[in-house]
């Protein structure tokens, strides 16, 4: 099983941007939880705290024109792709100013203008869709790449394997990213999957499968950059397995009692934001005061965004009709 190559040095500015973005995602998700408790967000949400490095690191490797699909646990990707928190909050509150006009909700933070071509509520469904996008690039000889983000649980549904096989025979410019957070809803990986290293699932489709430390944003970025550039230069698809963890339960109704004692703490000890913070501190780019200030600024921005989002109107049923059929 190849391990990710040592990444080339990332500019300081870029690292700082990643840091801020991860903090934004972390605090955004906290706010979502709060809005849930007060009933401003309803239904269900699937928070991604703990997995921020996967979203921000991988998306940091995309170029303009590249696209990706993700899942119901897609807030991290949406924000990493540049969705304004206000727009995302509005979507979660069902407001017309949401990215999907409030018809989509938490599971469908989508913005085609930012390369975010789908957030899917059906496990596995986004993978062949990303492959289709990749194939359109290949057929038109455009130097573009498609990514697909999905979970460990999705590697047990047929569509995942079907997509690997097609991606391989067509040598599609596709990067498939497993956010292996060790659980599918209430099921630990080992109860539903006979192996630990899901990257192995690429092998019998003749695709490189790479295991990546999903808590280390520099590693995530490096491995994804390599896969994207291979895809862009005609080298075909890659399966990346990001070893990561979600701090919260599967969805808002899940207290996550099924976790062994100490597991959350072990993972928190390798928190992706803290890890990058240490690196930045090491390079004298981030003092504790800087970090506190970033937190504070971001929190203020998040709070403001949520407050503004809450004031937007809701569509009427008739106004949603044009979203069903295109002209």
């Amino acid at each position, binding site marked *: 099983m190849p391990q990710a190559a040592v990444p080339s040095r990332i500019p300081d500015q870029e690292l700082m941007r990643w840091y801020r973005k991860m903090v934004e995602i972390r605090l955004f998700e906290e706010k979502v939880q709060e809005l849930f408790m007060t009933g401003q967000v*309803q239904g269900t949400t699937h928070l991604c705290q703990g997995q921020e490095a996967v979203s921000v690191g991988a998306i940091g490797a995309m170029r303009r024109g590249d696209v990706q699909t993700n899942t119901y646990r897609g807030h991290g990707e949406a924000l990493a792709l540049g969705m304004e928190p206000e727009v995302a909050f509005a979507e979660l509150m*069902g407001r017309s100013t949401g990215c999907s006009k*409030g*018809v989509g909700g938490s599971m469908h933070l989508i913005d085609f203008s930012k390369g975010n071509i789908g957030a899917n*509520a059906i496990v596995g469904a986004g993978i062949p869709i990303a492959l289709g996008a990749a194939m359109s690039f290949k057929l038109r000889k455009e130097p573009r790449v498609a990514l697909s983000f999905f979970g460990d*649980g999705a590697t047990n549904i047929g569509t995942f394997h079907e997509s690997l096989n097609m991606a391989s025979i067509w040598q599609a410019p596709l990067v498939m990213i497993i956010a292996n957070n060790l659980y599918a809803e*209430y*099921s630990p990986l080992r109860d539903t999957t006979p192996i630990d290293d899901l990257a192995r699932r690429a092998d019998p489709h003749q695709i490189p499968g790479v295991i990546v430390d999903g808590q280390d944003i520099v590693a995530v970025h490096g491995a994804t950059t390599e896969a994207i550039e291979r895809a862009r230069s005609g080298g075909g698809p890659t399966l990346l397995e990001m070893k990561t963890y979600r701090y919260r339960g599967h969805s808002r109704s899940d207290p996550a009692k*099924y976790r062994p004692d100490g597991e959350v703490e072990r993972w928190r000890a390798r928190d992706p934001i803290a890890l990058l913070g240490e690196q930045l501190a090491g390079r004298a780019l981030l003092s504790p005061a800087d970090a506190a200030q970033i937190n504070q600024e971001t929190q203020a921005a998040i709070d403001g965004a949520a407050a503004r989002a809450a004031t937007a109107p809701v*569509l009427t049923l008739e106004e949603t009709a044009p979203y069903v059929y295109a002209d």
Partner: protein
Amino acid sequence: MSTLIEPQAPTDVVELQLTYREAINLAMSEEMAADPNVILIGEDVAAAGGVFKTNDKLAELFPGRVINTPICENGFTGVALGMALMGMRPVVEFMFSDFLPTAGDQIMNQLPKYRFMSGGQCSVPVTIRSISGGTGRFGTQHSATGESWFMSLPGLRVCTASSPGAAYELLRAAIRENNPVIFHEHKGLYGRKGPVRKGAAPAAIGKAAVVREGSDVTIVATLMMVERSIAAAERLEGDGISAEVVDLRWTRPLDLATVTAAVGRTGRLVVAEEQVHAGGWGATLISELTMAGFQWKSAPRAVSLPADICISYSPDLEDAILPSVDRIADAARSAVKG
């Protein structure tokens, strides 16, 4: 849920007040206790008890017989079919009815046809318990009832449960049935409380139930629309309109006899359905009655989802799209008053 800790062989009928969730749990535990061939499989059905917790304690009560699956609906539905061929009676849980299409092949080409293709050599006692319907703010891909998707398929039976009592008697019937049944539970009803006749006989396959008598208009409904129809009927009383409510219960087979008798009494029909009218049981009922030469006192009416709009996440939009008590009452009123 203390009733569940020690499942007993059903003896005398005892009326309990249970939630819909508890009624389902009771039916499951009784059927599992009665027949060791009954097992439960699905995603997170064991320790977690299912996403809507209907399977609470079953894994403890019946060790080894509540089996978690990976996420692969087509695969595990095929597994249930294979088990059934060998004499087991698997119950399969689908977390959301919107996922039924991910098992489209096993549901449409295998379960219903397996016995037929073999010239009757086997039977396929599989029950799919599927969590249906709106009001949860789960959005476009998690809110379908799917109650009519498979009603055209010979070999299948399709059941819907509208109340705790109905759920208890119908689920036990479904599990005892020797043919594949898709059993729809409505996610908006799990918390509803109502009388459950513990120990009563399982419901008859394919039989609708008149749940409220009335003489001016008949409202036929399923799932959550049954309680909304009853509420509409109560409201109509104030207008001096006497509305009968029929819980259709099965979309395959359709109980034309009960519906015809009911509409025969009132001459007027409203179908209240949490689905698009096209291709559904409501349209089929109206067509069958009309083809049979039924003499309508006024044209039948349907309160349905709009033909050309999807269900949104936005709570206001979801509330607006689902057939409401008001809309049902209005349709019934206009059927009677024109």
